[in-house]
């Protein structure tokens, strides 16, 4: 990854953030803007195609992915507030478009993909003043961040830079929360057992806040806590960073 600070970046919001966690997306863009980098949010964007790709529907995934490729043509980084969508675009677009007319553009785009926490740490190296109250925070790094993108430690760095937060460690921290996209629908019982264990270990950690860099995990974990009736506040790392470090608004 090129770690030189760019003048301008694209922001690919992801479909999940767009509809369910827009505040996380907005916070991500504001954090980048605050560091003096222009953000472009192409209004034609929708989804990276991952749901169809992971379900075995490659033609459908390719059609949706092609629509995104057409929108992010400038030679600037594309920042994605989700390691799993970033992983789709970086790791799987080349395979998805192999031997198709869009192969070259897909590979070119894949090389410009940067997951948000990696961008904030490796490129912008953001330093923040924590204006929030002391609280205990547990971190859930997504499987895509940990394994596919290998950026799972960037969220740890960011949380550490919020000085008033105390990091707590839950058991089985690196284990999948059970979301897995359509896995949670196709294998609801296994997925349910996994999220039950995940929420139990987070609860045991005594965390006031659960933070993640992926909204899929958040939707799963927060949804389970809500169903159980209690649990820590669950939010995206961008939102946590923004709300604890800006004074107005």
């Amino acid at each position, binding site marked *: 990854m090129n770690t030189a600070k760019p003048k301008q970046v694209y922001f690919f919001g992801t479909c999940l953030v767009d509809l369910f966690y827009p505040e996380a*997306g907005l916070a991500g863009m504001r954090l980048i803007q605050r560091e003096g980098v222009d*953000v472009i949010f192409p209004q034609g964007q929708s989804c990276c195609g991952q749901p169809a790709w992971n379900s*075995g529907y490659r033609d459908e995934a390719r059609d949706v992915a092609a629509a995104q490729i057409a929108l992010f043509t400038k030679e600037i980084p594309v920042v994605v507030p989700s390691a799993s969508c970033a992983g789709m675009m970086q790791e799987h677009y080349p395979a998805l478009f192999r031997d198709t007319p869009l192969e070259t553009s897909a590979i070119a785009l894949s090389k410009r993909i940067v997951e948000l926490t990696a961008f904030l740490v490796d490129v912008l190296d953001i330093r923040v003043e924590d204006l929030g109250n002391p609280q205990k925070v547990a971190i859930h790094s997504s499987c895509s961040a940990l394994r596919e993108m290998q950026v799972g430690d960037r969220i740890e760095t960011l949380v550490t830079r919020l000085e008033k937060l105390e990091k707590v460690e839950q058991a089985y921290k690196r284990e999948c929360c059970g979301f897995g996209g359509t896995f*949670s629908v196709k294998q609801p*019982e296994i997925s349910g057992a996994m999220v039950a264990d995940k929420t139990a270990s987070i609860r045991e950690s005594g965390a006031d806040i659960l933070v993640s860099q992926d909204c899929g995990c958040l939707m799963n974990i927060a*949804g389970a806590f809500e169903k159980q009736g209690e649990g820590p506040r669950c939010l995206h790392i961008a939102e946590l960073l923004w709300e604890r470090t800006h004074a107005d608004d």
Partner: protein
Amino acid sequence: MQTTDAGFDIRIRDALGNERVRGNFRRAMDGLMQRRLDLFPDPEAMESLRQHGMCIKASALSRLPELLEELEAKLIANGIRVHWAETPLEANQIVLDIMQSHGATSMIKGKSMVSEEMGLNHFLEQHGIDVLESDLGEFILQLAGEPPSHIVAPAIHKDRYQIAELFREKFPDIPYSEDIDELTQSARAILRDRFETAEVGLSGVNFAVAETGTLCLVENEGNGRMSTTVPPVHIAVTGIEKVVEKFEQIPPLLTLLTRSATGQPVTTYFNMISSPRKPGEKDGPEEVHLVLLDNGRSGIYSDPELLATLRCIRCGACMNHCPVYTRIGGHAYGTVYPGPIGIIFEPQKGGLDKYGALTTASSLCGACGEVCPVRIPIPNLINRLRYEAHHSNGVTPGSGSKHKRSEALLWKAWSLLYRKPLLYRMMTKAATRLRMLAPGKAGPWTRYRVAPKPAARSLHDLARTHGVDNE
């Protein structure tokens, strides 16, 4: 056995509902993961060893036909007889023929997953052969009448209390004990006699070296050595993918295997079998046979991506680290090979029509691919098989058999919605405006979670009002 959607669902529910078995798996897998981690303290060294292991196996596979020929020639020159079997039935018949040619009616077995694949015990018993498993785990399972639930630790689903109960039932003369060492000693005493009287010993093979015609067998209990040296006839069974080129490639593979499997720097026993007993030698079998089983492997071999499946050295690390396997255990899969490797191997071997349902049993978390000692990209291969399950243009047997018109139409509609900005905008507008009408129940999702509610305004909307550039 088929792994139908309905059958799989039932086994999953049963497994999830069995607290005891779930606890047994969790504890066992936690221990195995920790032991592996302790033996790979340096991530860089581990990665370089994994890379090395991958290269050895990939290189061997790239020359598989000629290596198999070389192996056969070397084995024959060493005095080992070689048999080729395309199907499990053929392999079983070969084993039976060898036994009958000696008038043998008793066999003692070392651990072999290929013999499980063949259904060998059942076949031989039907033909009046007395078969005894000598690996402790397999011995326990033979008593219980169960298949292995793990490829390395076959009885891992049982705790010592269950085993004590089983021994009490099967061996009423032995004093009851829940002590692991005492139980082991009891089994050992029973097996000792049988080693001396069995007419044929059978084992698997971990690596078959083409260069030297050597069969390598990795084990901890010494039963493998006994099975392959005490009876007058030794029959080894293995899959055609176990061949490696050179003898010097064995140490790195062995290191990867023992560390990944059980977190041991090396196993208690490592056997290298290169010939029958020679004149003047005091022990060893008079005859050694190798049965090489295809059973669908040559079909897998024909695809450059799926070929990686055959790199597997059967360490079981993928199952030890799989959050799905840890929760449902090995039996729920209903296949010989469970866990992530089973998810990719079984459908390719037996057809997506029979085993396609397995491909849904992964959250694609990547833990299996992360630990695989030969770097099989298991999640990518699961993804590929999901595609083939729904599309008839795949190369895997039974491709397209999971095609459902309703599901395909749903994805077509999804694709249209998400690639047309106008349609997508209309959808998100409707979802955000009508968010209070969003269904509170969203199928199985809401059994364990509340349904997510769309936000009041989409990110597209927020970006516009906050003046973020459009292009």
